[in-house]
């Protein structure tokens, strides 16, 4: 079925609230999923894949700081989804880059990483150049690089297959973020290692996708939509005589 952006964002927010996200986190997570989906980046698929994981997470688990100085912070996401764990980590990077010109944030042990793009777009909108990259452990090893120019709402995205794996390579379940006030950090291939471009999305591709989504609606999977609706009902209170008494108009209103 097709839905509007507002519907998608609204239902996700309610579903996240139903999953015990705090109000602000629920709104931000919903924005991240909806942003991905309307730019053709399959935010709902990513959410769907991570939903069981999200439901098992401890909503009270905070992202902890392993190392922190003026330029760099290393955080532990405790295996949680970036929907729950990343927005304040990214904001920490924003604060450092504003103070020092450039900052690096590494979030170790996090999940559903591609969804972080939705939040990075907000930082870019606030005038920050942002690049994120992460590696997936499957064979061949793949690396995703996402670069936003300051004040651009959409990134350049590349996915590479990394055929020459460095010896010290470790299983990677984290994200590296580089934030810079005054320097563009777009993806570019200048390494001696052999990379194969698996996917490439340009700013214009993503903008065209967005335009289509607003004109024609956004296709969503019925089963996932229903599942989100069910989660959203957790925030509702069963109707009672008291609630109906307070509702206002009557059930018959002839005048």
């Amino acid at each position: 079925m097709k839905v509007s952006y507002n519907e998608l964002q609204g239902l996700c927010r309610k579903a996240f609230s139903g999953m015990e996200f705090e109000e602000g986190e629920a709104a931000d997570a919903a924005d991240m999923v909806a942003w991905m989906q309307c730019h053709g980046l399959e935010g709902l698929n990513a959410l769907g894949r991570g939903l069981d994981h999200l439901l098992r997470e401890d909503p009270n688990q905070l992202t902890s700081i392993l190392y922190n100085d003026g330029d760099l912070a290393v955080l532990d996401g405790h295996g949680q989804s970036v929907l729950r764990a990343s927005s304040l980590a990214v904001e920490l990077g924003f604060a450092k880059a504003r103070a020092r010109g450039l900052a690096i944030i590494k979030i170790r042990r996090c999940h559903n990483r591609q969804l972080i793009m939705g939040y990075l777009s907000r930082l870019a909108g606030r005038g920050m150049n942002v690049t994120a990259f992460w590696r997936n452990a499957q064979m061949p090893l793949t690396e995703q690089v996402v670069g936003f120019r300051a004040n651009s709402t959409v990134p350049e995205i590349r996915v590479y297959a990394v055929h020459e794996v460095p010896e010290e390579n470790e299983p990677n379940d984290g994200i590296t973020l580089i934030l810079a006030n005054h320097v563009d950090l777009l993806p570019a291939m200048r390494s001696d290692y052999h990379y194969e471009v698996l996917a490439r999305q340009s700013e214009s591709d993503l903008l065209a996708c967005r335009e289509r989504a607003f004109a024609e609606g956004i296709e969503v999977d019925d089963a996932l939509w229903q599942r989100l609706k069910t989660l959203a009902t957790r925030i509702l209170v069963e109707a009672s005589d008291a609630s109906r008494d307070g509702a206002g108009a009557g059930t018959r209103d002839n005048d």
Partner: protein
Amino acid sequence: MHDLDSQPRVRPFLRPAEQVMELERLGSLHASRLSFVRSLVRQMARQRWQVSCSRFDLDDNGHGTAIYRVQTPHGRYHEVIFSQPLSDEARSDRVIAEAWDVTFGLVEGDVDESLLEQMAANVPLQEAGRQHPRLLVLSRANRSLRNFSHFTQALAEGRQPDPTWLTKVGYLYRTTAVYGNGKFGIADFARLQDSPDFKRPFSAQMLAVYLLRHFSIAQVEHIAQVQAPQAAVTMDPELRRYLGIGNSTGLGMAPFLINHPKLIQQWVHCREQALGLAIDQPPCEADRARLIELTRRALAHLEQTVTENVEQGERNAATVAALPEVVTWLEQVPLDPDMWQQLMAWGERTLPLEAQELINTLLIELYPLQVDALEDHMGADERMELVPDMALVRLKQLIETHYDWALAEDYDAPEACYWFWYRSAEKEEPRLGVRYTEPGQEKEMPLAMAPRVRKAHETLSRFLEDNPRALVVEFLMANPRHKEIVRRIQAMADTPYGEIRANLWHRDMKPMHLLRTKLSFFGASRFDPKSDRWVRITLFQGAPLVEELNAEPSNLADFDDWSFPLEPRVNGMPMTDELAVQQG
């Protein structure tokens, strides 16, 4: 169109937020010339919009399909209206209703047979349907049975309906929800933001309602004509103009005012700026005479406003009682350059709240050249972003400076935390429950900002004791539950009119004030509260007719002068049944 930016930069005196944003005062606002119905009508006239009927396929009972085409200089739109039989038992104003007398949608572009078929299958279902992304607005309405019956019968008998019926209930149809912004699959508001036709807030919704009014007239005339082809007459234009569209609104409207603070800031700021510009004008005798005329019209309108609600009735009566004093004041005071400032100061000392705000509305009415450009500034970029690198101590200062009103309350006192807001499982309607008494408190909607501000202030004050140089982001990483309210405080601290200064938990809080605030910006008149939680109002009563719009009026000031409409009279006499019969 007037360009505000091309005018000399003047900074009028603006009333302080602690006065303007007090809930009872907001709940005393009247529609003004900046209200959305007024600005839409001006826009349509200025840009020579044309409305034509492209289908009017109704049976003898008025059931069927009608389509109206709207041509603007920039685009074409169609309103598709489905009228269907409805049993009296099913006629409910509640959002939980499942059938209505008419359902309708405003479509961007043309309507071909396939779209019409899709709409016919879905628009009558409203929330339960899957709506097309070219629909800009989705809505439904129920008949006022008594008016509908009286009007069709009178017209069929060859006489004009009695206008006093419209004074009691000012419409043939009453909408119960007018959806925009992506609801149920319709177009997102983002689609309209760059549209020269509908970039102003709620303008597409207001157009949809305006066209329903036109349909309601055509429909009763059609039914009368079918019933008595020889005897039936059409409605007198004065009476048509006096016919509006009703709206029934409940608590569902309240969260909007809290969840869109940047938009509310913009609406109130524009209104206050208009007032500031108006009272800065040195009046001439013609201005004085015009204000007296407008005051007398508003007085007569309020005298003719019918409500069974005791409290609103008393408020109307107090305003009616006060307005002759205003006229006397206006007639007697010397024509000083600061006369309007004197009037405002005198009013604040002596008049009840609703009368004060009525005078403010009328002062704004006097100066279209100065204030009308503000209608293009009613929209807002509503994004709120965190400022993570703000020093936490600075945030504390911001709260203490701009949210002092929220810190003043003891939220543990029983009367201060009496209500909680929640969403009912019935169509997700917002409700108010009594804390510790009614079920659902654990699922409370975080709608009351004041206690959240207070809680954040307490927590960050403790955090600062151990971390005096902390940044906001460091505080939030340790206390993420405060992210939303901190972001809001940072975004709203420099915008005085965004926050309604009330504790929405308090036992004495009146939800009706929230509803009236929004409805006044829509342009509602005839506030008729049915309890403290739902209200019926009238839109477009007195507004120019479609045929008058199509005639491309040359005198736009006259065309725009339709506020506070009065019961029509014919040849100086009330247009009563008997008179109409004699004329017939």
